[in-house]
């Protein structure tokens, strides 16, 4: 029989005669019985206190770890989570759908809506030719022009870009002058061609 006895650095196997083993086991038994002689209530209380202490220690470890992770990702937490929470404080009292769209899309939505509202007063099925974003920037207007699919999504009005290749018929065109936006009719092909000639100097961008 090999017994492993703990030394300061390592475990070393050591042989004991059977008699000594019996004595040892008796000793262990007495130790055990001494332990169990403690009142039951106290041992349960000590156990639960230990468990509580260990759980509290784990809680502290968890908090410490969490703080480290948050500080590593501080840019994300400050720039996104905290900023979004601050925005939530204001947003929760403003649930108007239009306001939410305006807040999200900005000028791209509001100017598109204004153009479409004008077209709708004439004929909803009309198509409007809209120049590129660069054209408006060149005329001092901050307007990111949505592509035709998004223009239609915003407004239910169809639009085309100046670089369109097929089915490029439009009844209206949008242009700018002195920081103001104007909408005019396209009465014939000659006018359309002359408008396209100007607009095509600016490359539409998504």
């Amino acid at each position, binding site marked *: 029989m090999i017994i492993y006895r703990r030394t300061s650095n390592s475990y070393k196997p050591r042989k004991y005669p059977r008699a000594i083993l019996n004595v040892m086991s008796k000793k262990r038994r007495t130790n055990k019985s001494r332990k169990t002689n403690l009142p039951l209530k106290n041992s349960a209380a000590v156990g639960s206190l*230990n*468990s509580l202490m*260990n*759980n*509290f*220690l*784990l*809680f502290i*470890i*968890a*908090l410490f*770890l*969490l703080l480290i*992770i*948050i500080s*590593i*990702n501080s*840019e*994300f*937490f400050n720039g*996104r*989570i905290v900023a*979004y*929470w601050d*925005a*939530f404080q204001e*947003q929760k009292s403003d649930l108007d*759908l239009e306001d*939410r*769209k305006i*807040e*999200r*899309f900005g000028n791209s939505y509001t100017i598109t809506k204004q153009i479409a509202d004008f077209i709708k007063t004439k004929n909803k099925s009309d198509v409007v030719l809209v120049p590129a974003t660069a054209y408006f920037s060149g005329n001092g207007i901050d307007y990111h022009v949505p*592509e*035709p*699919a*998004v*223009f*239609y*999504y915003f407004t239910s009005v*169809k*639009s*085309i*870009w100046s*670089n*369109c*290749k*097929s*089915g*490029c018929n439009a009844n209206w065109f949008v242009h700018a002058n002195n920081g103001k936006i104007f909408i005019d009719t396209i009465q014939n092909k000659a006018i359309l061609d002359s408008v396209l000639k100007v607009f095509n100097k600016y490359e*539409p961008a*998504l």
Partner: protein
Amino acid sequence: MSLLIIILLTLSQFLLGFATLNLFNIVIKPWLSIALSVLMGIAIYSLVPFIMELVHIRLTGLNIFIALALLSIVLSVIRIKRMISSLVSLIKNISFRLKLYELPFIAVMAFMIFVSAWRCFYYPPTSRDFTSGAEVIAEYAFKEKTMVNSAFSVNMESTNNQFKPPYLTTLQIIYKYAGFPFGQVWLSSVFLFFIIFLYHSLSTRLHKILVGALLIFFIAIPEMYAYTIMALFDYSNAVFLFLAFYFLFEYFLVEQKINYLLFSSLLMAISVYIRSETLVLSFFTVLYMIWFQYFKKKQGLKGAILLPGIYMLLPVLFYVLSITIYINTYLPQKYNISGQVNNNLFDVTPFFTRLTEMNTKLVFGENNTYLYGYFFYLFIILFLAELIFFRGFKGDAKKWLVAGAIIFLGIAFLGYLLPLLDLANSTKRGLFKIFPVMLFYFSCNQLLIKASDKLRALEGK
């Protein structure tokens, strides 16, 4: 009111998903079962209007909700006895008890999820890929009761987003009918239940303190978090691809039951339905399966090919439905998909160029922490630590590392195969798929397992 509708929709999705899990006889822990059921339910929600559209049933709100209810009944009735006993056992075994040390992590995660869910609800869909494709089609399907609607009469020369699989479109239609004009809140359900799934599945291997810490790192991946607010294909695609790997590895490592393999195949098919390019990744996965069956399991060539062959059937079927039939023949506009394929496949330089760019411009690029936080660094540290201190990896860790390699190389391969998939958008978002896989590699990392054992010892377990 909105909250009540979300709860009702989630309950309905849970029932649909739970019935599906029951059909496949998937037996997992209660919280895993709930999370997986809801995720599955969302996927089925998306499939129903799509199938209705293909068989020319008008997409009115009433028609869609009747179809969903009927499908729930049919799926439940097939194995009703087992379904009821599974439900009873789920209710009996579910536990809501939390340990004190879980609270800080759960509180922060809940806060992060709430903030994301609020913005997702509050703002209209923003991503250009979404508004110029799925969303505009969904908006006019809601008005005109068909997915072939006036959106296709608009000049769409500036976009090809109308030619994307209908996963987003159909979910948007349902949620618009349910009273959410911007739709999109289904994404918060995907986010929430995916995190629940990850938390409970990782907890089976690691101590919950480590799981909480890893998950906060995961949620705090800035670019991925942004797409829990803005609906697009990539987040859902990452979720279902990961789940497909999860059940595939359950089949290989634990259960060895064919139903787990078939369920994994269904999940892979859903991820193909969400993003069709995933078919290439599923093909790579099948190659790995063949290698595993042949060399590791010594099954012979026939046996090695048979199961992977069966595995590929559903992903291919879903691809045919959503691309070959829906896009190539059903939609009023034509799209030359084969024209998008690299016509000089013998020149493999673009593959290596993309692989290099993924490393230099995305993973280790100037803005890498702005895109992916510190997750790649965490992976590298734990990977190297395991390699140095343990001189190798365990079998399950190897599987997740292979899955990571399939995704990383697969995304580079997709960039070479389809030049339209650019680095700045498609590849950048495509990398989302690798993060849950890395997370599961962490759960098999011997260093973290040792740390877990120490924490458990401290806890007295």
